[in-house]
């Protein structure tokens, strides 16, 4: 391995076994499986495995140099987290090998191992030890950590009484003071307010500036652009592209916003395991757009989304929830169908759901749309990235795009002036 290569992964692959919805085997399954295996002795060709297998990662070969800040982007289920978990030794690859040169610290979640009953002070020590710091190291950096987190006054309060902001700040502060050669960070900026996110980014830039290697996963494209020197783009477990952040981000967004198909198929999208699955989003379309391409919308045009939904059983109540996110991963608009009216009860069958947003005055740029479908029981289906669209400046039409837009919404308020 050349001197400046700190991570070398060759043909990494990870297979998960899925299929049966309950993730935990019961003894009965194992016994039945044993009987099946026994039966297979007579029919050795039929291993029937492929059906409930799922390749979360395939043929990933990548080299990372010392001091590099590598971004990893991709849709949910593209294998980003699996890759990080393999590199941080939490899980084992099914095939392939990785050589890591140097100490690795991974921050896959903010506050791993925090115990709500323990005080802030105690949790700093506990969390530091879990992340791999020695007691002496934590003691040395303790004041710095507390100052970074801005929780001096509450050090001896159990963290269960902390606000979520304080909790996140303290947790990130501990992690930020690790000094590994390789730092692996997963989507930790999704939490915390804007000011704190900037502070975190600043800290990471500082860490990178000190010659450490960072692997950074985020849905926050602005942060990726700001921080990373190179970006890996994953698609369905495979490496879809690698290179300069700008081009990779464009390709990533393009996959959803630049598609030529007016209707985006959602049936095959990977989903979380905790869904009931009684209702399923089959497709989505951006309707009646005045934009130049199917997934674009001219500024000032009304936004309408159409969903094709299949219900496998009757549900007494139905609630559709939609969130629109900007490039930074911030939720700009949220809406629930129950605010307007009750959508249920619905018999089993296929339905078209239409959502009229009206004119939202979204500033030109890229947006991502997350959709959830709830029944009386629980979340039936959820896609954090159901589709993406681009708002393009309008050159003609009802309202030409104004200049000087800041923020996500260019709201045209009513003004009046009266002399008093």
């Amino acid at each position, binding site marked *: 391995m050349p001197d400046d290569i700190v991570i070398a992964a060759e043909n990494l692959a990870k297979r998960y076994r899925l299929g049966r919805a309950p993730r935990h085997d019961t003894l009965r399954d194992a016994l039945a499986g044993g009987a099946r295996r026994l039966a297979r002795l007579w029919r050795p060709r039929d291993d029937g495995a492929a059906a409930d297998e799922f390749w979360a990662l395939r043929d990933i070969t990548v080299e990372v140099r010392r001091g590099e800040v590598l971004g990893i982007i991709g849709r949910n289920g593209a294998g980003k987290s699996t890759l990080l978990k393999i590199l941080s030794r939490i*899980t*084992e*690859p099914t095939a392939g090998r990785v*050589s890591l040169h140097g100490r690795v*610290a991974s921050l*896959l979640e903010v506050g791993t191992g925090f115990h709500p009953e*323990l005080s802030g002070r105690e949790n700093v020590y506990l969390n530091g*030890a879990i992340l*791999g710091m020695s007691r002496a190291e934590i003691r040395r950096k303790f004041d710095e950590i507390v100052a970074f987190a801005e929780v001096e006054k509450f050090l001896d309060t159990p963290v269960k009484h902390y606000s979520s902001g304080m909790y996140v700040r303290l947790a990130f502060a501990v992690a930020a003071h*690790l000094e590994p050669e390789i730092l692996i960070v997963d989507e930790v900026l999704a939490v915390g307010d804007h000011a704190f996110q900037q502070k975190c980014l600043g800290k990471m830039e500082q860490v990178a500036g000190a010659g450490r290697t960072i692997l950074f996963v985020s849905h926050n494209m602005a942060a990726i652009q700001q921080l990373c020197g190179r970006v890996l783009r994953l698609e369905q477990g495979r490496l879809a592209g690698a290179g300069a952040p700008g081009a990779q981000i464009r390709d990533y967004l393009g996959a959803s916003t630049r598609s030529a198909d007016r209707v985006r198929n959602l049936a095959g999208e990977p989903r979380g395991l905790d869904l009931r699955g009684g209702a399923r989003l089959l497709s989505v379309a951006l309707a009646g757009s005045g934009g130049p391409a199917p997934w674009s919308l001219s500024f000032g045009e009304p936004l309408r989304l159409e969903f094709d939904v299949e219900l496998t059983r009757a549900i007494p109540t139905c609630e559709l929830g939609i969130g629109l996110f900007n490039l930074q991963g911030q939720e700009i608009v949220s809406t629930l169908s129950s605010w307007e009216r009750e959508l249920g009860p619905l018999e089993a069958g296929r339905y078209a759901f239409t959502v009229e947003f009206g004119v939202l005055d979204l500033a030109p740029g890229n947006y991502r749309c997350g959709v959830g479908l709830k029944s009386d029981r629980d979340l039936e289906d959820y896609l954090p990235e159901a589709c993406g669209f681009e708002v393009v400046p309008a050159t003609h039409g009802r309202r030409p795009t104004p200049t000087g837009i800041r923020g996500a919404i260019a709201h045209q308020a009513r003004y009046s002036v009266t002399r008093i």
Partner: protein
Amino acid sequence: MTPALPETLVIEAGRAERHYWRDLWRYRELLGFLAWRDIKVRYKQAVLGVAWAVLQPAVQTVLLTFVFGTLARMPSGGVKYPLLVLTGLLPWQLFSSAFSSAGNSLVGNAQLISKVYFPRLLVPLSALAVALVDLAILLGLTLPILLVSGVAPTWRLAALPVFIAAALLIALGAGLWITALTVKYRDFRFIAPFLLQIGLFVTPVGFRTDFLPNWRDLLALNPLTGVVNGFRWCLLGGDTDFYVQGFLASLVVAALLVGTGLWYFRKTERQFADVI
């Protein structure tokens, strides 16, 4: 972060860790922190805290004395029956609390295991600490009781750590099996309490084995028998016999449990994060 030396680490499919035991040593501070957390949380959360550690064995002493001493009239060999039961309960409590917390430890720390790397063996190991603290409290109360009852401590007390260690090893061995199996098969959550229920009666907690020569060898197959007898031998002074062969049998069974437990734990440990 793997503490110390920047070196090349190779991760490969299906390959056992070369540095397993060295890693375990490097993470020894984390072992201390996890144990400290468990102890702290246990005594912080429960209002009765220390009282819990005492109340349960106290009630059990009364019950077992009544059943075995008063109703069944088992021979006590000149020892006051409550003392016989109390000295039997000490190792039993140590074992059962160490075994059940080690058995639940991995699933109880699922969040940690799926989000950060460290040698997984630390989790069941740290679970033993709470049981030790409970034992220390009980022992601190038992010794004065023995003194007041006229049983003076002898030099044999010095041998007590040997039996404590033996009880912990047995609990660890059995706990490793249960906790690794529970990760994959949640059924084992229900099997552990069931085993403990049986254990209380096949272990000579409420009676003594030296008056049951016909059963002595059979009972010695239960590794805890030797430990319980050892505790009594240490604490009760001259009135008890120590069956050396029985304790050796305990040690053999304990070694087997720990050996196979470690083997199974290490065999399955690399998949914990995927199935937990």
